[in-house]
């Protein structure tokens, strides 16, 4: 009885992990611009890999006691995924990738830098320049 429950938990974790990772990669493939595409891998794929690792943790700690090493990879993935997503978003803003019109938000970094005044305009105030 207990074996059946544990096997069911392992099977559920494996299939849930695979489904989450597949959905994340599907989002990476068919969303419109980079800022939308960043959502899929950085949240969903991390959860999918974590689910799979916890499933294998249960699988290998059935016979001879709990095994902690698998939890290390899970914790490492959950710590490092937001950091790499942040760095990727910063580099995308630095390259000024064009957002889709449906993407919400208007970050300062994406505004085009217009010159302060044109050549025809006379500078205001008492500037020493002509």
């Amino acid at each position, binding site marked *: 009885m207990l074996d059946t429950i544990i*096997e069911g938990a392992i099977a559920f974790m494996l299939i849930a992990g695979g489904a989450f990772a597949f959905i994340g990669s599907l989002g*990476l493939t068919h969303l419109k611009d980079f800022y939308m595409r960043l959502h899929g891998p950085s949240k969903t794929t991390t959860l*999918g890999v974590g689910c799979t690792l916890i499933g294998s943790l249960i699988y290998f700690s059935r016979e001879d006691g709990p095994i902690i090493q*698998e939890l290390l*990879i899970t914790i490492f993935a959950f710590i490092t995924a937001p*950091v*790499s997503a942040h760095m990727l978003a910063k580099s995308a803003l630095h*390259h000024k990738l064009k957002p889709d019109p449906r993407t919400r938000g208007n970050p300062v970094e994406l505004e085009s830098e217009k010159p302060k005044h044109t050549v025809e305009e006379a500078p205001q105030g008492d500037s020493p320049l002509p």
Partner: protein
Amino acid sequence: MIDTALWIALALFCAAIVLNFYRALVGPSLPDRVLAVDTMYMNSIALIVLFGIWVNNKDYFEAALLIAMLGFVSTIAICKYLLRGDIIE
């Protein structure tokens, strides 16, 4: 029950890696490709773990841990290069 779940999970992760590969080939900009490769190493970690379950051997976790660490460091290094034009200033 575990065998069936294992095959389903393997198929899903392989399909996910194919989709990542498509994005890495097509991706219009450089951060897109970096993101695709980042996702690809995450999926390959899970694939190695599933292979470890398949052959019933728990030694494959060290390979997965190594891939996780090196992938994170390389992603951060490439992002740093894209941001500053230099990795260690």
